[in-house]
């Protein structure tokens, strides 16, 4: 039961990171891939109208964490207090900028909101990256089973850590570049004309950087948490993740070279999913690792909610998933193919 809920949570987080990773990545590149106002509107049209459906995966992930592992939710949300509010404010600003930037065709209005849009996406990528880095590195859980993190301490990933240290910063940079590269693949698929051509050039460049950073971050992870790698050998999901990473990457590179756009997007999605899956499998069953002493770490087994609630949720959750995907398909089938500026950019006056 606990393994199933852990897997469901991982699935939801993977969905969020893959889908929202595209939106965030496209947002990061908005000013690079789009030079004119019309081109920048095209970038926003490429992520709409389903960007908020993507974002709901995070909210729903929070809800399911609440049901299945309330103690983990309580400890981590309170521990990351200030970081969570930064994340919330960035989400607020990004949502508002998508919503309002199209309303008025005034150049100053557009420039201001497009800047906020791009900047909040950069901030979101860094925050999500740093959060993932923190989960891998661990947090200073003490004997009381609680922790609190300041933004930084001495930038060392051991002992009394902060949110940012050299390890989590490099994970954040890696995620920033990966999201941008993923977003570039998506823009190649969803757009035509100059935005498409620029995105293709950017994608080819960025994926080389992703490859280089992947090597760096892997070596760093081995430095910070060597036991994750030795534990991987007998975990089939970690192998599945690893295979996904490799096959995803090769699909991206071959797709970009031969201009098979869909293949590149599927490749980058599989790559990101593979990273998340191998990470989640290798840390399991520890959900929050303690940097102070291993015995203070919080395990999924000791922190899951009581049985009946989980059994009940296991009945309704798959039903809700089917509904959710049905809603998505109902709308998405009207939005396949390239963005049409006449239909998809909002009509201002």
């Amino acid at each position: 039961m606990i393994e199933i809920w852990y897997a469901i949570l991982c699935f939801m987080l993977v969905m969020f990171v893959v889908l929202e990773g595209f939106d965030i990545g496209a947002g990061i590149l908005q000013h690079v891939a789009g030079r004119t106002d019309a081109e920048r509107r095209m970038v926003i049209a490429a992520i709409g109208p389903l960007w908020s459906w993507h974002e709901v995966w995070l909210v729903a992930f929070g809800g399911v964490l609440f049901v299945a592992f309330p103690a983990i939710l309580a400890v981590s949300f309170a521990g990351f207090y200030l970081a969570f509010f930064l994340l919330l404010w960035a989400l607020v600003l990004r949502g508002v900028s998508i919503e309002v930037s199209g309303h008025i065709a005034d150049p100053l209005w557009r420039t201001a909101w497009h800047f906020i849009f791009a900047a909040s996406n950069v901030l979101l990528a860094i925050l999500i990256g740093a959060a993932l880095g923190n989960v891998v590195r661990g947090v200073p859980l003490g004997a009381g089973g609680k922790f609190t993190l300041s933004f930084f301490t001495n930038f060392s990933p051991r002992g009394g850590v902060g949110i940012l240290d050299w390890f989590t910063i490099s994970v954040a940079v890696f995620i920033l570049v990966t999201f941008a590269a993923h977003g570039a693949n998506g823009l190649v698929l969803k757009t035509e004309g100059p935005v498409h051509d620029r995105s293709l050039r950017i994608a080819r460049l960025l994926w080389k950087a992703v490859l280089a950073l992947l090597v760096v971050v892997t070596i760093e992870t081995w430095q910070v948490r060597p036991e994750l790698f030795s534990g991987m050998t007998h975990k089939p999901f970690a192998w599945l993740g690893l295979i996904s990473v490799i096959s995803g990457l090769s699909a991206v590179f071959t797709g970009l070279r031969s201009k098979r756009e869909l293949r590149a997007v599927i490749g980058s999605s599989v790559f990101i999913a593979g990273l998340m899956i191998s990470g989640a499998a290798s840390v399991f069953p520890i959900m929050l690792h303690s940097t102070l002493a291993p015995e203070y770490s919080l395990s999924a087994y000791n922190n899951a909610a009581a049985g009946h609630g989980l059994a009940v949720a296991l009945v309704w959750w798959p039903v809700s998933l089917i509904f959710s995907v049905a809603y998505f398909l109902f709308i998405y089938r009207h939005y396949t193919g390239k963005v049409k500026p006449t239909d998809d950019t909002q009509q201002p006056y």
Partner: protein
Amino acid sequence: MEETLFWSRLQFAFTITYHYLFPQLTMGLAWIIVFFKWRHVKTGEERYGDAARFWARIFGINFGVGVVTGIPMEFQFGTNWAEFSKFSGNVIGQTLAMEGMFAFFLESAMVGAMVWGEKRLGPRNHFLATAGVALGSWLSGYFILTTNAFMQHPAGHSAAADGTLQLANLAAFLLNPWAMIMFLHNQCAALVTGSFVVAAVGALYALRGRHAEQASLFLKTGTLVGLFSCLLVAFPTGDQQAKMVAKHQPVALAAMEGRFHSGTNAELNIIGQPNVREQRIDNPVRVPSVLSILAFGHVSANVQGLDSFPEDEWPTNIELLYYAFHIMAGLGTLFILLMGIANFQRWRGRLEKSRGLLWVLMLAFPFPYIATTAGWMTAELGRQPWLIFKLYRTSQGVSEVVSGGDVLFTLIGFTGLYFVLGVLYLFLIGREIAHGPQGVSLTGKPEVSHD
């Protein structure tokens, strides 16, 4: 600890009060837009299509602010109320997760296409998307009110071995009678807000002499929906809500009415200021026996006063609770009166010529917001000092590791951010209303506004 508790309460109260300004219009307006869309598809009359498009643009702005101010609410359970989340997560996490899975996915998939995708979707699917958003917003309301109902009147739970709560009976939890009545009461109030806003814009156009066709459509729809929803808010939903409070939270009822002493033939205070130190109502205007009738259905029923309860179970802010309840109930009564007169005049065909009444309708739209806010203050202040009524105190639920200074910092951050959001919202909504409903037609380029 004390400081963290105080600032966390204030932050939650501020962010939820601000947030709920938007969903109440979303939930009320959604079905009115569905109605316009349905008439458009059915009759092909362009005035309905224009009306649906005009309100959908306003809906889109309103929905956007509602979404971005809503996400912090769910996160605050974990960040600020960690102990409460740990204690009750297995129960209330169910509805919070269901809200995400069943309601938010529905709304978020459909809303973009509803506001901007009429051309892409075609009439039938666009109608379905609009109805989907309306349904999703009401589902979301249901799940969150069930969560709140558990805090007001816990049902369907049992104690787990580690001292936390666990789900024992999903049906009892989801079909909590408190949730049912509160949901109906709250949704009718959302329709009041939606209809008052529609009527106010109709009144504005009528007074200005612009968009005559739309003005009368908005006035007709707004006042008609307004009258029915105002009546339903008071009776049976409001009445049943009060009876439930009387039965299950008698201490809250005593504080709402400023009733310090128990007794039969309980009088209803229409006006008067509670004086907690002297334990009396100053300058009261009272109607004898009415409280007994409202609470228990007969004249001689004993209504318990605060003196029947230990002082550490009294609501913590009796004055505010008393005023909130009386403002809600008083405004609710005035709404029925206003909508009654407006419908009577419309029936006589005089509404659009009664400038005085149009002025009142135009300026009345803020009051449903005040009434719903006061209603929620009544519910939430009445629940104090409990987080889960009679089960878990508010002071037990706050995060232990978060400092008061951190919470004050984020509260100030929200204040600034939400101020900017509010200004932006009013600017954009004002612009839409000034531009008017002829807006962007489906067939051609944006029409140029001539007035």
